[in-house]
């Protein structure tokens, strides 16, 4: 099997109501600081930090917000932290009009896994974790099931 045929698409969770941030090349301590600062400033109830790979973290907040407030929060975070990676992420989410975080493994990276919980977890974090569980099940099933036949137009 060639390297190319092993490649799979990336699976992620996407919505407009959950505030999600992607901190690349930042220490865990700084991520915790920025997450708690943003959470306090916008009263986002609680947050969860997921480790994506070495020095790369994802943050998901618990409160449900509108898309306009979501953009405001992400923009504020970019402005305050002056983080280049986060600004790139923010611009891309604005173009797509919805924010996405990766859930499946990617190339040499594992699935992002929770490393820190803070505050309430029964809102958006709960639904994020449910979807995460479902998607990981999909990935597991796809790995274990025999390789499906290439797509056939007649559906046979």
């Amino acid at each position: 099997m060639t390297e190319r045929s092993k490649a799979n698409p990336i699976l992620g969770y996407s919505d407009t109501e959950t505030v999600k941030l992607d901190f690349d090349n930042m220490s865990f301590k700084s991520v915790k600081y920025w997450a708690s600062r943003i959470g306090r400033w916008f009263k986002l109830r609680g947050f969860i930090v997921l480790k994506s790979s070495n020095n790369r973290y994802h943050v998901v907040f618990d409160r449900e917000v509108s898309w306009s407030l979501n953009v405001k929060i992400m923009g504020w975070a970019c402005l305050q932290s002056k983080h280049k990676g986060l600004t790139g992420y923010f611009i891309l989410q604005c173009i797509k009009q919805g924010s996405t975080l990766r859930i499946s493994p990617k190339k040499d990276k594992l699935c992002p896994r929770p490393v820190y919980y803070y505050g309430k977890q029964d809102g958006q974090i709960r639904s994020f974790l449910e979807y995460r569980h479902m998607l990981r099940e999909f990935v597991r099933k796809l790995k274990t099931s025999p390789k499906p036949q290439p797509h056939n137009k007649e559906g046979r």
Partner: protein
Amino acid sequence: MVKKIAVYGSYEAKVPVRQRFWKRRRDGILQRYWKRTSRKKTAEMKGRYEFHGKGKDLYKAVVKAHHLMPKGFVDISAEKFLENPEKYGLEGEWIDREVES
């Protein structure tokens, strides 16, 4: 309130080659036109599906998405996608290439 599953990445697909030709219009201007030939070329592209719907449909859609590459940005319910997947995707292969979420 819609939670979606994003399936995204870079892929290689066979796309029809376009050929240009020139035709003189009635007003004398030479106009350029494009036509689709039957020849195919391999092109590297990026694409993205965003599926929403029930769990079983989502799983089936994700399995289909492994073989059918998205034509650009496809935001659709999993049920509708499964009814006519060729409409939203083309055959190809996913490749390992850095892509933003």
